[in-house]
């Protein structure tokens, strides 16, 4: 060893007693982990916000949600009367933005023109999206909750697996629109009927997906070890497997929420949708406007808003799903 690397002990300015004190072996001390503290959710957000694009998309989402939920409140939108205030004035109908601004003067509500009964397209679109987005969130919440719980049980128990697989094969063959339309026919096309119709069988696909994931990780070594140590099944499910699936569930939610908006639009289009003026209903009502020169804004505005909302929700969800995968936290 090189002499120059020897340390001069006097630079510590400690007495010899302190320098050469005996350190006993301490069990408690050796159990301490010196790695930096790891918090799962903290890491999720750290990874999520490290990407600049996520901040942009998230603020876009916030803006959309403000317009969806706060804007109708601020202007005091009344779904019963507001769409029909100008119904008797033919000169207010089917105006494109520039003509509408010319007719009413510049105001935020006329920047997308006016619709078939002279209503503001801008207002209708945001009110419609509040219905569609609420429907999507509620359906996704219900379906994911039921789907994850049932899927976890389904994956664990072999007996449940046998029965549920058969149920899945049968229900999966009944056309989805049949369930929905019969529900709508039985109970009238209200918001909660739609929620019921979309959730009565909607959880089954999610449960099947979760079941497959559970089966994949159920028999991994760490779970086997845990079971050998006598951990109850429920605890294995909640503590060993569920955290593993957080990213899967978040990713699933990212595809589910936009898909319910799409579904609502689709159902309204084939005439089985809500009675309320949701986005789908607006698109359905304005279908003819698409091919009429000068009326395009009525049709493309709800289509564009629906698309933007779904894309933003999807991207946020996907990236949150990526961030919630612990393997990306290194």
């Amino acid at each position, binding site marked *: 060893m090189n002499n120059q690397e020897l340390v001069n002990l006097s630079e510590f300015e400690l007495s010899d007693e302190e320098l050469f004190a005996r350190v006993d072996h301490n069990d408690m001390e050796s159990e301490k982990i010196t790695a930096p503290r790891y918090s799962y959710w903290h890491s999720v957000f750290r990874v999520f916000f490290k990407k600049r694009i996520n901040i942009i998309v998230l603020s876009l989402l916030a803006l959309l949600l403000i317009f969806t939920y706060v804007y109708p409140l601020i202007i005091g939108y009344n779904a019963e009367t507001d769409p029909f205030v100008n119904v008797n004035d033919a000169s207010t109908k089917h105006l494109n933005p520039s003509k509408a601004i010319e007719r009413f003067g510049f105001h935020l509500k006329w920047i997308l023109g006016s619709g078939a009964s002279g209503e503001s397209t801008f207002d209708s679109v945001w009110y419609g999206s509040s219905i569609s987005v609420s429907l999507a969130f509620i359906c996704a919440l219900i379906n994911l909750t039921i789907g994850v719980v049932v899927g976890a049980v389904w994956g664990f128990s072999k007996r449940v697996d046998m029965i549920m697989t058969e149920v899945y*094969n049968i229900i999966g063959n009944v056309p989805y629109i049949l369930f929905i339309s019969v529900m709508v026919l039985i109970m009238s096309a209200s918001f909660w009927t739609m929620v019921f119709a979309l959730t009565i069988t909607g959880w089954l696909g999610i449960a099947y997906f979760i079941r497959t994931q559970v089966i994949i990780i159920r028999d991994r070594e760490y779970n086997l070890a845990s079971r050998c140590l006598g951990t109850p099944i429920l605890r294995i499910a909640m503590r060993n497997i569920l955290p593993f699936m957080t990213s899967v569930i978040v990713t699933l939610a990212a595809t589910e929420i*936009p898909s319910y908006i799409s579904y609502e639009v689709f159902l309204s289009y084939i005439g089985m949708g809500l009675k309320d003026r949701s986005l789908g209903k607006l698109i359905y009502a304005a279908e003819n406007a698409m091919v009429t020169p000068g009326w395009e804004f009525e049709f493309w505005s709800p289509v564009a808003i629906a698309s933007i909302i779904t894309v933003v929700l999807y991207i946020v969800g996907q990236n949150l799903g990526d961030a919630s995968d612990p393997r990306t936290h290194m």
Partner: protein
Amino acid sequence: MAKYLLRRLLHGVFSIIAVVAIVMILIYSLMDRETVFDADNTYVHTASNQREVYKYRKWEEYGYLDYVPYSDYLNTLVRNGELDAATRDSVAAIGRKPANDSAATKKYVKQFTDYYESRGYTVVRLNAKMQTTTRVVSGGQQQLFAYKNTPLIVRLWKYFTHLISVENIHNIDKEIDIGKRGIKITLFDPVYQTYNEDGTIAHRKLALAIIGNGTRHKYLLYTDGQFPYIHQNLISINLGKSYSVRQGIDVFITMKDHQGSYVMSTVTFPTGITEESAYDLHSATFSQGSRNSLAFYQARFTDDYTNMSTVKGNPSKVGYSFMIGIIAVIASYLIGVPLGVIMARKKDKLVDKIGTIYIVFIIAVPSLAYIFLFKAIGGKLGLPTTFIMDSKSKLMYILPIVSLALPSIAGLMKWIRRYMIDQMNSDYVKFARSGGLSEGEIFNKHILKNAIIPIVHGIPASVAAAIVGAIITERVYVVPGAGNLLTEAINKYDNGVIVGVTLFYATLSVLSIILGDILMSLVDPRISFSSKAR
């Protein structure tokens, strides 16, 4: 393998039956029966008691219940010889109130009530609705009938036993005299015969035909110049009669029959008249007394097999859906698979990023929105945006095919990319690379072969989806395909069609999953369905 497939098929049959049962419960038990009349004009124009009776008659047609009016019961008694026609006429008229019945009527009303109540029917007697003491309200005449709701099991049993019917020579009622019943096999199909003026055969053509007398169809087997050249009427599939979509016609026929304008050809009728006609003589079915009812039939036919379908020039509903769907499926596999491979090879490069944006667009944007977008873009490019059945232009197929293919291309790209990237770190790839194989060889010969296996599994399902049709696409482009059939039936409360179409869908989907498994085991020899453990 055979044993396994048999078990799978049995499971499939079980789940098909269960699906039909669920659908029947949904539409017959859960749905309010009154909704059937929502769009019914006759219902609006009838009133009072007549409306009640109309409702029950309609419900019987729609398969909800069995409905027997009092007069039908009396007629049955007459037919069985328990009652003569004169007495029937005297007891048929029931009083405005039960108290007004004559003694003889009372006896038969009691007999009717007892007979049907003992069989679980509900007997309903509606008293006349009076405007004044002597005048009856319009439609308010007194009514007497019995009805019984059809239980699910009976309905299911009836449905599945009538699903496939095989022709036999006693299909036509025994009492109808049609000469000697039997089946005749001929090598010279009479449809192709032409006659001289004096009625002798001028020309005949060698063509196999089996002709029945007493069967519902006249021609049980025949040949013609159209694919698949040999046709049969011996076995027919009855998926359920339609009430409002196409009244009285079976769903199966609605789906498979040609549509559009008539195609005329020179037809020689059995009596020797030769003329330009769209009638298809091979489709003749029995219709009692029809020959004598019309001079037109009398001049052309020698028997009562006069009920014929017409030859139409355009493909059937399923035909259109299949044609558009299958081209879209083939195109999406031809385009989607190579694109997915390129994305996987150039992972994180520009190509991959553009592809990912496209996939996100297709997944996230509502399908309705991008189909309209394609329609708008196509319209700007000058492509026809609506489907006109009799148009000869092939251009109108482009937009529906593109609208169907683009989303499935995205799906294929997504999965191929995922599977290939998953395979890229496997040991066999590292081994191949260390063995000196070029990247191209590794990707195309090794990785693709393994990544394609789950994709192959989906091929039958996408073909089945092509047959079933695409609801939005066909609606947006007004394609006369099968995709709209279910929604149309639901909107029109056509229960028969709903059940029939569901059965059709379910059968296709069950078959396609089984076929997918077989195909997968053919592509990948490691997958084996035989029960023997390796």
